[in-house]
Every structure is written in structure tokens, then in C-alpha cells.
């Protein structure tokens, strides 16, 4: 897979599930190769106060996030700097 897709919907999580946690964006991304396959993942490289109309439908690509020896797929806008 190319790791590229389109944002179907998203939410900015504000609640601190862990004390001190900063707000972050979660998105459901529709993958290019299979339109009925979606991934829920973190989204970076986007301001937290972005208008929904400016984010839904945005093209994104995968960046892997390494944490505790596990590589999590996350998304950034297509063409965002590495």
C-alpha cells in the first residue's frame, strides 16, 4: 500500500486521559487502494483549531511513530516535511 488516503472525519481530543496530556487529533482515514478500508490514527502537522471543512477531505500520508519499540502508523498532510 502507498500509505496515502483521505480524511473521512476527525476529532480533537481535549480531555486529559493521562494527567498533563496535550490535546491531539485523531482521524479516520480512507485508504487509496481500498475505499472501504479505513484506519483510525493520530494526525500531526495540522493546527488544533483547524475548521472541520478545511480538514475533512484532506489528502494525507503515513508517518510511522516509534514508541517503546512499536511502530504506530500516523498521518500527516500529503507532502508535509519529514
Amino acid at each position: 500500500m502507498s500509505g496515502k488516503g483521505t480524511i473521512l472525519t476527525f476529532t480533537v481530543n481535549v480531555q486529559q486521559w493521562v494527567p498533563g496530556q496535550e490535546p491531539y487529533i485523531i482521524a479516520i482515514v480512507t485508504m487509496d487502494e481500498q475505499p472501504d478500508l479505513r484506519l483510525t490514527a493520530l494526525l500531526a502537522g495540522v493546527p488544533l483549531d483547524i475548521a472541520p471543512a478545511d480538514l475533512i477531505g484532506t489528502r494525507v500520508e503515513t508517518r510511522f511513530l516509534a514508541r517503546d519499540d512499536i511502530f504506530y502508523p500516523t498521518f500527516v498532510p500529503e507532502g508535509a516535511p519529514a
Partner: protein
Amino acid sequence: MSNNPERLSFISGVGRSASGRRLGRTAMDLTLEAALEAIEDAGLTRDDIDGIATYPGGDAIASRGFGGPSAPQVQDALRMDLNYLYGAAEGSAQLGAIIEATMAVAAGLAKHVLVFRTVTESTMQGAKGRNPGQGMQAATGFMEFLAPFGAISATNWFAQVAQLHMHKYGTTREQLAQIALTCRTNAGVNPRAVYRDPLTMDDYLNARMISTPLCLLDCDVPVDGSTAIIISHVDYAKDAPKIPVHINAVGTAQYGRPSWDQYEDMTSMMAQGAAKQLWSRTDLKPADVDVAELYDGFSIITLAWLEALGFCEQGEGGAFIEGGQRIARTGELPINTHGGQLSEGRLHGFGFVYESAVQLRGEAGERQIPNTEVAVAANGGGPIAGAMLLTRGISN
């Protein structure tokens, strides 16, 4: 349609324990309080009860307050001989236990089934609140593709449904607020509600955001409490002391992918299938419904049920509840007349059936909707759903 097997059953009794924040009582204690009240309400004794059903079943302690005692534990506590037991979480949402009992009675497996749902989430969660982020553990089951990717709370999952509904259909926060505001107004005349102080639109719009676009007031309030329902065969209706609450039709269908993020129409939920099946089993129409008791674990779920049940078209829920007049107790379709889980407390599903029965019997006191003949009770959000259409008196 009168040969629906569910019409061989009716609700003969209802009961509930004390409910509220951090009662500090055990799940079994609350369960027995509700069960004994329901049995008495049905005009029965414990010796008459020959079946027990519950949601979700299993072990109350391991569930961190999400579930109460298992059916066999209650059987043992009440020293009963039973013809039928059931406990599961994979049925038609919480209503699955009530619908299973309904069908067991219709099939002749039992005459009187005690169905209960007990929660002690408030006490078990304690001062830490709902905190799914405690500690590191492997995500399993349906959490496997959600929790490791930041979507750790049901608020996150439902927020994305609300976000897409707003984007696609122009639904506004001011419209969605009417679910919470209506529930609070109704809770104001329900002595058993946890939150009864009036709520304004400003209160809603200024409430702490949890996961955009859902704020604190879009989320239900965990409580401790138990609700019990007695399902009996219609042969008993003429001897039952209270007005019979008939089960006109049930909806158990689950169409499409049972998933939080792969369901085809992410502006809606599994409610669509259950609602479609419900109406296929009755001659009654949405316009016949006098009160709608629709699950509100999050406000957007109630909106999804209004659309799925056909009270308005898909996507028109926001306009339907605009201003709140239509869904008020004085409106054409009163909803969540007890205050829902948003304001009465999260009895988790069974509270909507209890309230339906109370309204149909005319026992709702200050919050009674006059001349209530038909009620719909719906449970579940996201990938789970179940619905029941209930009528005042035996209708076949």
C-alpha cells in the same frame, strides 16, 4: 403481524434500586433491591420467577462496575429453581437480555423471567473518573485498532460521527445541545435524577470540551444502580395487578460492518438495521409513537436513533430538534422523559425501558405524558443496537 412471537410476552413488573453517584453498595445488593421490587410490582413472589436474564453477564468485579452479578449468582442469592437463564453482551445491545427473555417466554421455556441490568461504575471508578488511560496493557478485541492510535475513549469514537454529521448535513452544536437541554429539563421533574438544576444554552456552549465537537454535557453521567424488568406470558395479563405493557415488536438486526470506524455510513450507526426490522414487524408507524426513550450515552446517539427510527430523514435530525420544542414533554415527540442517562444517570439501557413502562402505565407523576399509548425504547450506539415498541395494554 399479530403472530409476532414477542406479542406472547409482556412487561408485568418493573423495579429499580436506589441510584446515584458513589453509593458504595455492592452490585448484588442493588440488584436484589431492584429485583424484589419488580417481582412485587408484577404481583408475583420469588417462587413464581422461573427465569433470569441479564446484560452483560459475567463477573461484576472484573467488569469494573460495567456489569452486575451473573444470572446464576442471582439465582443462588434468591435460592431459585429456574427453567431458563441467559447472560450475554453480544445480543441486541443491552436490550438483548430483555428480548431474549421475551422470546424464551414466548417459546414456553419460562413463565416469568426476571431481567436485570446493574451498574456500579460510579463507585468503581471512584475519584479518578472515567480514565481509560491508566497503565499500559495490550489492546484486544474491538480496541485493537482504536486504543493504540489515540482513540482510547468512546467519546473519541462518537465525536467523529458527530463531526461528520455536522460537516455533511450542517448540523450545529446549538442543535445537538437540545438533546442535553431537553434531558435536563425532564430530569428537573424526576426526583431520582442525578442532575436536576436547569441548564441553559450558554452553559452548554461554555462547557468543557472532551473531544470535538462533543463537550462534557454531551456525555452521560456514570452512576450506581440496578433496573429490573419482569417479562411474563400474556396468559398472566388478566391477573397482573398493573396495566400490562405489551411488547408489540422488537428490532434485533445488525446490518453492515459491526465496527466503530468501518460502518459504511459514518453519520449513522447500527441503529439503522434494528429500526428497519422493528418497523417491519408491526403495523404501527413512527407517527403513532407517543414517547421515544432513546439511548443517550452520548447526545449524538439519540440523534442517530431519531433518524434511524424514521422520525425524520437521515441527516435532518439537527433541524428536527432545533429549538427543542418538538422533543419537549409538551411537543409532538417527547424524548427521554426521565432525563436520560445524560441527566438521570447511566443505568445503561434499561432505564429507557423502565421509563417507557412507567409512562405507558400512567405512573410517571409530574413528568407524565398524557394519553401515552405507544412508546419506543432504543438501546445501543455505534456497532450495537436494539429496539422495542411497547404499547399500553395487550393489543392482539
